[in-house]
């Protein structure tokens, strides 16, 4: 087995380990469109990072935070529906990112790589980001697990019971921004949300507690990465999209018995 294949696998599993548990909250809190909006803004972050000569990952995280703050403040405005705002920002920011990349004359930007992932080009630096940042993300998530779960069930009840809801929401958003930054390399900006949504959705069928669902999400995500990379290696399909296709197939195969039952 090739070295780059193993590194890709390590990177994909590493991202799944963070994306699974965080993705559960994205599913529970019905924030998938919000996740899509942030991830579509990531290209602008890459462009800004390159423009300013800093690590594009930092550019991505910073841009996501600004966009998330914009969404939160605009959502309070009764003149706009929340999903309209998300739609405007999701597509507007992607377009702005594409325009910004076009301005970068002196830097060669692998646009396809950013949009659809370039997992086979994962570097040691990427792995350090994924595992170092991922471990701190998971640790943080473990520490705020009960509070975050409580506010996902009922925001006001959690507040009355003393959960620091605003602070937790901010940290949660930071973690989402981080996952987007590291998952960008794996499946690309256009497909990042699938890493957050599909494994938890599949895991839901087998889980009886929130913790089980988070754990099974990691398993399902890792299996998807393995399957996608195997397909890429054997029949030469593009790696990032293959991972997402495998994840989708796993979802439908496991959901099938339930769907058939409902039909009958």
């Amino acid at each position, binding site marked *: 087995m090739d070295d780059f294949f193993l590194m890709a696998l390590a990177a994909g599993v590493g991202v799944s380990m963070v994306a699974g548990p965080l993705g559960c909250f994205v*599913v*529970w*809190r*019905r924030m998938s469109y919000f996740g899509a909006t942030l991830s579509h803004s990531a290209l602008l972050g890459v462009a800004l990072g390159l423009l300013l000569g800093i690590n594009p990952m930092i550019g991505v995280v910073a841009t996501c935070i600004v966009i998330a703050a914009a969404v939160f403040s605009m959502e309070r405005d009764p003149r706009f529906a929340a999903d309209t705002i998300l739609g405007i920002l999701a597509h507007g920011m992607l377009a702005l990112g594409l325009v910004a990349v076009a301005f970068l004359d002196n830097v060669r930007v692998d646009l396809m790589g950013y949009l659809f992932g370039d997992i086979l080009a994962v570097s040691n630096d990427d792995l350090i980001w994924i595992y170092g940042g991922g471990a701190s993300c998971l640790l943080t998530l473990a520490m705020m697990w*009960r509070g975050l*779960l*409580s506010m*996902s*069930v*009922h925001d*006001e*009840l*959690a*507040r*009355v*019971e003393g959960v620091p809801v605003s602070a937790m929401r901010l940290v949660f958003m930071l973690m989402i921004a981080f996952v987007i930054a590291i998952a960008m390399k794996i499946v690309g900006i256009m497909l990042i949300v699938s890493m957050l949504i599909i494994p*938890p*959705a599949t895991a*839901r069928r087998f*889980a*009886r*507690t*929130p913790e*089980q*669902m988070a754990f099974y999400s990691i398993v399902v995500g890792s299996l998807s990465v393995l399957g996608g990379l195997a397909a890429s290696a054997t029949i030469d399909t593009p790696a990032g999209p293959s991972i997402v296709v495998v994840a989708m197939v796993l979802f439908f195969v496991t959901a099938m018995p339930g769907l058939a039952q409902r039909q009958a």
Partner: protein
Amino acid sequence: MINSERQTPLIRAENLTVSRGGQAVVDNINLTVDAGEIVTLVGPNGAGKSTLIRALLHLIDSDSGVIEREPGVTIGYVPQQLEIDPTMPLDVRRFLRLGALVSLEDMNRALEEVGVPEVIDTPMQGLSGGEMRRVLLARALLRDPDLLVLDEPTAGVDFGGQAELYELIRTIRDRRQCGILLVSHNLHLVMAATDRVLCLNHHICCEGQPDAVTRNPAYLELFGSEAVASAMAVYTHHHDHHHDLTGAPIDENDAHHHEHTHG
């Protein structure tokens, strides 16, 4: 527990005003809840009941006025609505432990107290309306609260179940001597289970003991036909036969006439 000091209220609001879009939704309210006391907010839809509760719980900012809690007061809160996303696998046991890390023994005791000991392993999404209200109450009780704040504690419960819930709330007060602030628009049932009623329509229209409030013109005006109907129900019940001034039963037509001459 703080409930031995009956002089200081558990919570006190003074001249509390909350505005939305330049209009006072909650207008200059004074309110106290003492330990061992059930205080009920009644009022029509949109009267600002929930807004007042949420301001008292510091869930929203108030524009002016003072809210004081006795130091160290623990509040148990039962919100009006709780919809758990079907994608979250959460049974009652796990739900109860979200509020505080409590033992299985405590959970069983709390569920016993609210009358649904059998639901501990039921998924939250599988509870009936009445069971849901009771589980929410159990979660609030697990905090060993000095003050219970219940927003429409009978929402989504059928009529018979509502009476039982109010009965339960009274039992909880008797047993724990905690203060209870509850919101209701079920006038008739709540009147039997409360010590003091505040009739709210942005400002406080009238307040006092339940039987006094139900006879207050401000209350009757606010609730219109509903209040009249429930007053009639009480009236009919108490006067299913009639008496003259000496106490001797008399016939219907005379009684009718009697009322008219004095009416």
